[in-house]
């Protein structure tokens, strides 16, 4: 019988060795390891780049009063004396959508601009783009297959974001004032870009799970210790008092002062009071 066969025979016959072999087979497997933690990962749904959730617009185009005149006929003197039907024809009700959007944009810019003739300051530019973006976003909802509009919209959103970035660098106060006025949320780009993968997401989720477990356990331990606090302080007062009395009785050097004992008593009283307040 050759040596190899002898070893094999030993291995198969010896129950201890056989179990070892089994353990080795399972525990040494390091590839394709699946965590048995009950963490459920939900892949976030993709939001198209032109949607308000991505662009940061918190408000859309509001519903305007349809009875007002179109932008070009606002100050018309002829319309003042015109008859009812003509007035209606020149109102927003009979105007194309673009006229409504134009009026919205004009009103929005009027609420922002520095002076009467302000057309090109950074805040007015950003406001104008915001008006266009919101109108186009509405159009995208109605015509989701309009690819040309989608491209233009995305480019405009990116341009606005870029100029918001510049404004933030130049003039922070104006930046904050403007995003508050226009209802835009500004988020900086993340430090690193990587597409979402199952493995990486699960890794992050596992990390947060471990962190939560640790914090829970620490909190529980803290609660246990805090529950023991009053009893411990009472014991401490008793012990200190006992030591002080003994030292006085025996005529030895008194190492425990009365202030120390009073301090602990005060600590206990404060603790009990704060607990009571918390309960109330």
């Amino acid at each position: 019988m050759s040596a190899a066969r002898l070893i094999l025979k030993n291995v198969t016959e010896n129950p201890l060795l056989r179990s070892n072999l089994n353990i080795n087979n399972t525990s040494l497997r390091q590839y394709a390891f699946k965590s048995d933690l009950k963490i459920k990962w939900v892949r976030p749904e993709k939001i198209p780049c032109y949607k308000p959730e991505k662009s940061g617009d918190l408000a859309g185009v509001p519903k305007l009063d349809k009875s007002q005149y179109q932008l070009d006929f606002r100050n018309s003197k002829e319309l003042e004396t015109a008859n009812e039907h003509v007035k209606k024809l020149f109102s927003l009700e009979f105007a194309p959508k673009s006229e409504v959007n134009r009026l919205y944009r004009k009103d929005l810019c009027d609420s922002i601009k520095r002076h009467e003739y302000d057309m090109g300051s950074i805040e007015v530019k950003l406001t104008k783009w915001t008006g266009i973006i919101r109108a186009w976003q509405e159009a995208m909802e109605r015509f989701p297959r309009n690819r040309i509009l989608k491209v233009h919209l995305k480019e405009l959103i990116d341009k606005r974001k870029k100029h918001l970035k510049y404004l933030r660098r130049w003039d922070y106060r104006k930046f904050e004032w403007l995003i508050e006025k226009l209802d835009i949320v500004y988020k900086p780009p993340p430090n690193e870009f990587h597409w979402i993968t199952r493995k990486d997401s699960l890794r992050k989720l596992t990390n947060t799970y471990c962190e939560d477990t640790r914090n829970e356990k620490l909190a529980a331990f803290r609660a246990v210790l805090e529950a023991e606090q009053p009893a411990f302080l009472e014991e401490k007062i008793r012990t200190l008092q006992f030591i002080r009395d003994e030292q006085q009785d025996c005529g030895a050097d008194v190492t425990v002062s009365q202030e120390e004992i009073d301090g602990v008593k005060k600590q206990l009283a404060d603790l009990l009071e704060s607990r009571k307040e918390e309960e109330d």
Partner: protein
Amino acid sequence: MSLKAATKVSMLLGQCVPCLKQNTSKFKVKRLELDENLLMYFKKDEFVYAHDPENKCKTGDIVLMEQLPQKKTRLVTHAVKEVIYPFGDITDPLTGKKVVAGKYRDHIEAVTKVYGQTKNGFKYDKAPLRGWQENKKDFTHADTYIKYHDDGKDQPYAV
């Protein structure tokens, strides 16, 4: 020629970046490293943590830091000395006037006054200091990340 590590220099000028640690701010320090093959200097960013108990640095500020005589922790080696340039609120060092991009703020306001200031427009004297939109509409004080998990809750820092 190897560069001396940034943490060993006594004074540093850095830009504040978002940091989660309490009483501490994180700074990006730009240094130049010599490439020996090309004999050219290239930019290299190093990150330094500085003790900042009053939290006077905000993201983007250019800040002067001083080395601590003793390290506070393994990471915190410096303390914030002075905010030199607050982000987005630059003062011209020569004239002491406030500057917006390439213009003085006074000049811009003077031009506005000539045209006639509107009631709704932005006014510097009434505008509050930076920080009142923090966590409301401005999320630049923290690092953002790409949303990787949909847990049904609101994730303000997810992009």
